[in-house]
């Protein structure tokens, strides 16, 4: 069975040990010393030399109000009626008490905090290649450099890749990219070499909070479902699994996630599509147009023969 990652974002503390371990084991060069200026996340995104990326989502504002889904009023927030809604109620309660003056503000702190995943929260997620069941990059690769290996993971063979780059914009998650220095496409190998030697991938090994778990995908999925149940039982009802048992054209993800907010907050698509679903309809439409144009050309050129 396929091997993969279960990344439980509710356990992530944003230490970036996975990023460092990945860079070290895979001998990936440093990207730069630039500061992104947007958050503690200076890695910003996955890339050719960054195969793990820790996202930092800061849901705070100066007044301690939660900046969440409840303000959107869409189906997600309504379906949950949970953390966001509670926080909003808390925030408005704070506002009322503030308006009443210092006497009313004594118990504000209890309302605001509401636990780590409560009102003012700081979400972190260690992002990685999802090793999709129907991988856009693998389908797109014109050289056959991208394969599914014996561990069920998507692997780029560096000795075959000729750097055409077509996989880069066939990836629904923006994972794979071209290394400008050597002209080839690179992404997470799920530590193919370590797996061959029976070792746990570097990032999972380094993770100090067990946010990144490695193993048989089936077993991980079971474990993840239990974790969702436990979180819901503890009142964190926004927790859900992304990329497990879903009906999307990319299929199940061999690296799936437990998230606590909408996917787009983590820069993940709500419902990823494998781009090759377009291929056959597009070919058919093109052939039909070809027939129309061919007949039109024939009619206009063929008149010559009759009048000859």
């Amino acid at each position: 069975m396929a091997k993969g990652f279960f990344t439980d974002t509710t356990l992530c503390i944003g230490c970036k040990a996975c990023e460092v371990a990945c860079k070290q084991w895979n001998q990936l060069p440093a990207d730069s010393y630039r500061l992104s200026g947007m958050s503690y996340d200076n890695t910003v995104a996955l890339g050719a030399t960054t195969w793990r990326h820790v996202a930092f989502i800061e849901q705070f504002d100066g007044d301690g109000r939660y900046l969440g889904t409840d303000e959107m009023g869409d189906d997600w927030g309504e379906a949950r009626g949970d953390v966001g809604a509670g926080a909003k109620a808390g925030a408005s309660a704070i506002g009322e008490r503030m308006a009443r003056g210092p006497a009313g503000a004594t118990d504000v702190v209890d309302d605001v905090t509401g636990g780590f995943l409560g009102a003012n929260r700081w979400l972190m997620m260690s992002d990685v290649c999802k090793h999709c069941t129907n991988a856009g990059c693998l389908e797109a690769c014109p050289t056959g450099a991208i394969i599914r290996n014996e561990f069920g993971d998507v692997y780029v063979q560096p000795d075959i890749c000729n750097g055409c780059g077509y996989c880069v914009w066939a990836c629904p998650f923006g994972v794979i990219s071209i290394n400008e220095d050597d002209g080839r496409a690179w992404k997470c190998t799920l530590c193919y070499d370590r797996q061959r030697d029976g070792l746990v991938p570097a990032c999972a090994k380094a993770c100090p909070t067990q946010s990144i778990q490695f193993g048989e995908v089936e077993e991980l999925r079971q474990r993840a479902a239990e974790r969702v149940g436990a979180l819901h039982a503890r009142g964190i009802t926004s927790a859900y699994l992304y990329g497990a048992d879903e009906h999307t054209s990319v299929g199940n993800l061999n690296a799936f996630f437990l998230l606590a907010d909408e996917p787009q907050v983590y820069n993940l698509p709500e419902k990823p599509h494998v781009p090759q679903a377009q291929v056959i309809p597009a070919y058919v439409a093109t052939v039909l147009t070809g027939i129309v144009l061919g007949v039109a050309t024939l009619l206009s050129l063929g008149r010559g023969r009759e009048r000859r």
Partner: protein
Amino acid sequence: MTEEYDRPPTEILLPALRNGQLERVEERAEAAPRTYYNVPTIKRPPWRWFIPAYLFLGGIASGVAFIGALAELFGGRRHRSTVRDARYLAVVLAAICPILLLLDLGRPRRFHHMLRVVKLSSPLNLGTWILTTFGVLSGAQAARQAAEDNFILKRRSWLGRVATLLPSGPITVLHGLFGMALGGYTGTLLAATVVPLWASAGVLLGPLFLAASATSGAAALVLVGVLSGRQRREARGEIQVVANVASAVQFGLAAAHEVFTPERVSRPLRRGLWGWLFRFGAVGSGLFVPGALRWVAWMSGPKTERRLSTLASVLTLLGTLAERIAIVEAGKRSADDPIAYQLMTRAQPGEARPTPAQQGARAPQRAGHAAGIAARDTVKIGGQSGSS
């Protein structure tokens, strides 16, 4: 990014036809955008200028080949110069195109790795095969023509004899078919990506590119015909009709693309530099003006006819080039816009994943998770043999 888009010189002149339902989704997303610090969700295509150049020249080769093939099979004697021009043009363009593609590779020396597999799911792989076959067929056609003309290739040389002995009919048919395939696959190649501008209403891109190929091929044949002075006016008139029909198809498809694409997604193709280039360069001066010129040319005397035909052809070719550049560059822009990608990947009703509440209810309510998490480092790994 948004400031650039918010300069809409074209917005007042050509207000976009709106699709009501998509607009509502769009407004909802734009009212409360939730993105990760506006970081693009997908990677932008890093294509250099080689690719729009290839799309342009490959498109001309495609149109020239299939118009040439049809002229050879059904056009009769009056199209002999059309056939000759088509054969020579096709081989020249078929020689340039692979070089352009090769230069855009990260590892150009490994270009032949494209030919180690046949993979129908990858339009790029299929396109490589199409281009290769097209090149061989163009070579055969041009060799026959050269031998017939006693030009470069001596008719009595062994190569010239081989060229004239090859079966003419089947090669012509195949050349035309592969020419069409060459014009159409590029649109599918763009559509089968995650770039919002190309992927939404992506079904229309292949037909659009094919129609653009036919238009530019016809224009190239007219231009070469006028310049060489061998083309008969009746033959030219017939090719002009092809150009006009293909232009009309092209306009219809471009309009349909605009109607069926959400405004946010196609914004880079509606506003700003590329929007301007597309509307006025590709559609205005590339489709409408040359169409009118061809019509006037048809009515006028021989000298004016040649001049107007030349002008119309040049404008059509420039318009096609503008169209290729605008679509590629606007696609890059749309890839940078996380909201556009969110619109494209928004779950439709009934498609959404189980809500957190449903997932929580479904999950077994036992405390086994703690043991499961602690078991991480004791997970048995498949070992050398692996298991799949």
